[in-house]
């Protein structure tokens, strides 16, 4: 994990060149030591660009810092919408709370026409589904499509047989090349405090794998974690949009990348068969990046 330090001022040098068909960005330390290779966004025409975070609605300064960093990033990476991974409004949910925990911090993005698509977390009043700026259309779970990507926002706090049947039906009917599911409770996690929701995994994962879901985004754990693919699905936990559980990640062979020392968010670009991602801290440091190649669609039985 990289940390900011007075002694190691990072100089970012852009190396413009072909590297597997994309731009490569190298971060070099003051001592000249290469610290990481960052996969940059291709910013292709008609690509699907979005941001994601969870556990954001605290109303605290850190949430505002994340929001401001997102606005700064949007100048370079103009994303169109944001996926909210639950715990959108912590504590009370009066009009003043919605203002302090959602409308004010994200005002520059809301004013710029960025849409927010929420899912429900365990700290959320289910009637948030009626709040128009969350774009839930009055539903606890729903789907929407952008170009070649279909997004499925699920309610992991109440995965009853009706919702499971809905998920299976909607996923199997989807003709999108990319199917991305997002919900609050992670199916896999290396958090010490919560850990994975094993029963949810047992019921939901077979449906997701059968339908060819590529990516799952979750929150609940107050850190960032990207796991090595599990049953062919890439899992991201981005539960540090406002909350933080400091150093809560435990060592695990399943971790592809983890970041548990500050708040942050993630950016995504789906360009054809490639999905690019970057996870950023609230100070703008790129903590993780990469590209996922879409797997071939599962064959019909």
């Amino acid at each position: 994990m990289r940390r900011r330090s007075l002694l190691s001022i990072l100089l970012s040098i852009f190396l413009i060149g072909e590297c597997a068909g994309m731009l490569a960005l190298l971060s070099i330390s003051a001592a000249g030591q290469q610290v990481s290779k960052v996969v940059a966004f291709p910013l292709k025409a008609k690509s699907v660009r979005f941001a994601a975070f969870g556990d954001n609605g605290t109303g605290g300064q850190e949430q505002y810092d994340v929001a401001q960093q997102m606005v700064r990033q949007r100048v370079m990476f103009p994303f169109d919408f944001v996926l909210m991974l639950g715990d959108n409004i912590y504590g009370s949910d009066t009009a003043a709370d919605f203002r302090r925990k959602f409308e004010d911090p994200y005002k520059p993005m809301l004013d710029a026409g960025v849409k927010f698509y929420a899912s429900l977390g365990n700290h959320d009043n289910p009637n948030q589904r009626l709040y128009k700026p969350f774009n839930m259309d009055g539903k606890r779970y729903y789907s929407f499509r952008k170009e070649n990507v279909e997004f499925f926002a699920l309610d992991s706090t109440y995965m009853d047989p009706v919702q499971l049947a809905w998920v299976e039906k909607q996923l199997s009917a989807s003709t999108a090349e990319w199917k991305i599911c997002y919900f609050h409770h992670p199916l896999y996690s290396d958090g010490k405090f919560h850990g994975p929701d094993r029963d949810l995994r047992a019921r939901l994962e077979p449906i997701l794998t059968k339908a060819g879901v590529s990516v799952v985004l979750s929150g609940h754990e107050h850190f960032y974690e990207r796991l090595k693919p599990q049953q062919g699905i890439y899992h991201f936990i981005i539960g540090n949009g406002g909350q933080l559980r400091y150093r809560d990640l435990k060592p695990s062979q399943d971790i592809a990348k983890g970041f548990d020392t500050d708040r942050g968010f993630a950016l995504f670009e789906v360009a054809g068969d490639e999905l690019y991602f970057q996870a950023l801290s609230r100070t703008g440091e790129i903590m993780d990046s990469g590209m996922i190649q879409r797997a071939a669609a599962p064959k019909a039985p």
Partner: protein
Amino acid sequence: MNRCVLIAALSLPFIASIASAQGPPTPKDTAILKDFETRVSAYMKVHRAAEADVAALRKTASAKEIASRQAELAESVRAHRPAKQGDIFTPEVAGEFRRLVAMTMKGPNAARVKKSLKSAEPVELSLKVNDTYPERAPLQSTPPTLLMNLPKLPPELEYRVVSRALILLDVKAGILVDFVPDLIK
């Protein structure tokens, strides 16, 4: 029809494993569950009558309107239903739910369900029928395997876990409809 088939297909492995361990429901079990359904239907009549007396909850950009209309609906339900614990979960119904929950908590998936409950941020609350679920308290997620083994509810109602109790929550009004204490073990 398709949805029913799908739900049945999803439930089959679990029901089969339970049936082998616990045996199928007896006619008495079936009658008690029918009584539960009747009581839930009666509650929904009250809920709809209460809803008719207040401004409807609807999609809006006003968080203030959502909060105030939810509170009005809760007040209206209370006015229509001076209830006490056990009105829906009668001793017989509570006993049947103990049997159903025990299938999950002692069956082959028990360890997984218990871990799931633990990871879902357990909640401690003092429970009182008709009280508003505290907005500052999280809603603990209910394990899907547990939900698969409980009677189906209308969309306005949900089973939720609070500590060791199973509660019936009116999610629209945000109020506690009834509960069975000390059920989740």
